[in-house]
């Protein structure tokens, strides 16, 4: 089992190394995320009363769509020289390829989220210092859920024509519970509410993460099969 996780880690590290060299994903994800912040900053008055009500939605629009942008490229490097087949030829269970990809996608999405937060605070005049820890917890749980499903669908869409278009169509209907739970929990956190108030949304996120990681573990083998 240790060797299984060791190899999962090596797939994640390989993706990180490829990304550091190619800079394909992080740059586009980051630019997109900041662009969303800038556009909404012009659309809404940062000093207005209602800004706390719309800010969680704006934050999650930026994070969810930038993560989707990254997901579209997750199997791109594997596709180029059929490297996915190279991985499938190794004696690693195919679920290991999935978890390696989940690891790297989650890492990239969290980096973008952490870099987006300062822009979010400045553009919408919201202090995040007091709420940083609970907000980070929500971001981590929601990102894992979003990436768990997204990586699975990215594996499906990479093999089909116009996969980049198909991915969001497949992905968003299933991600609705994660997005709603993340927005609701973020809203309550920014309102200064106690954890007990938004614990239900955290439980939904945890449950979603567990269910979809397990479903993906079981189904990935069949999805990458030709």
């Amino acid at each position, binding site marked *: 089992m240790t060797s299984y996780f*060791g190899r999962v880690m090596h797939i994640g590290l390989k993706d990180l190394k490829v990304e550091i060299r190619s800079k394909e994903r992080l740059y586009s994800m980051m630019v997109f995320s900041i662009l969303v912040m800038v556009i909404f900053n012009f659309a809404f008055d940062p000093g207005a009363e209602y800004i706390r009500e719309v800010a969680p939605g704006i934050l999650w629009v930026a994070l969810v769509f930038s993560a989707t942008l990254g997901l579209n490229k997750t199997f791109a490097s594997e596709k180029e*020289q059929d490297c996915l087949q190279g991985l499938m030829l190794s004696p690693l269970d195919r679920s290991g390829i999935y978890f390696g990809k989940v690891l790297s996608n989650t890492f990239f999405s969290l980096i973008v989220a952490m870099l987006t937060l300062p822009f979010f605070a400045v553009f919408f005049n919201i202090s995040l210092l007091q709420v940083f820890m609970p907000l980070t917890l929500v971001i981590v749980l929601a990102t894992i859920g979003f990436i768990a499903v997204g990586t699975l669908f990215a594996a499906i869409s990479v093999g089909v024509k116009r996969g980049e278009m198909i991915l969001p169509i497949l992905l968003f209907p299933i991600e609705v519970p994660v997005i709603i739970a993340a927005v609701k929990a973020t809203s309550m956190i920014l309102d200064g509410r106690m954890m007990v108030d938004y614990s239900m949304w955290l439980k939904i996120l945890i449950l979603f993460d567990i269910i979809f990681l397990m479903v993906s573990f079981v189904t990935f083998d069949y999805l990458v099969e*030709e």
Partner: protein
Amino acid sequence: MIKVSALRKTYGSVDALRGVDLHVKEGEFLTLFGPNGAGKTTLLKTLSTIIKPTSGKVYIDGLDAIEADHEVRRKIGVISHKTFLYGDLSALENLVFYARMYQLPNPEERARELIEEVGLGGRENHLVETFSRGMEQRLSIARALIHNPHIIYLDEPYSGLDQHASLMLGNLLKKLHTDTRTIIMTTHNIGHGLEISDRIVIQLAGKVVYEDQTANHTTKSFEKVYFEMVGGGK
């Protein structure tokens, strides 16, 4: 030893393999000929556990390739016209990565040894995207040999190579063969196939339609048989 019996693979209404029977002895070099769409790549993908057959059996060294796919993968190496290499990683990083996927004890040592063996010494730290097609293919051979498999599948390995690179690849393949490895190769190039193999097979529309020893043929005589079979009219 590879034993294939009544192997079928269906994609929807298309029969890619229609009951293939094949027996390859240990140390034998078998070349599979056939036109595009004959199911050669599907057969190799099934033998290498990438594809699960619709029905039929594949035994690799007595192991059921469907039931014991992980063990079977440790015994096989695949070289294709696609290299399975990451352009943004160096030659060494690529091989070390694959060595780790096979849980080899000294990944870097093994990777360096193979880079030397395929004549890429001194280029180990260069990114693969800077390599010529011939160099990529040699590195691809090193990748396939990283876990020292004794069965090698070659799927159109000469595809896209210039004459010099083809010659170098041919020499490397001859070296592999003398190591008493079992090799199955698919190719469209009759000359290449006859030059290095022990036995030749023609596959047509998902079925093996002809088998013979290479020694019984010259390029001309086999060309005649081949074009009669596939209807090339030569």
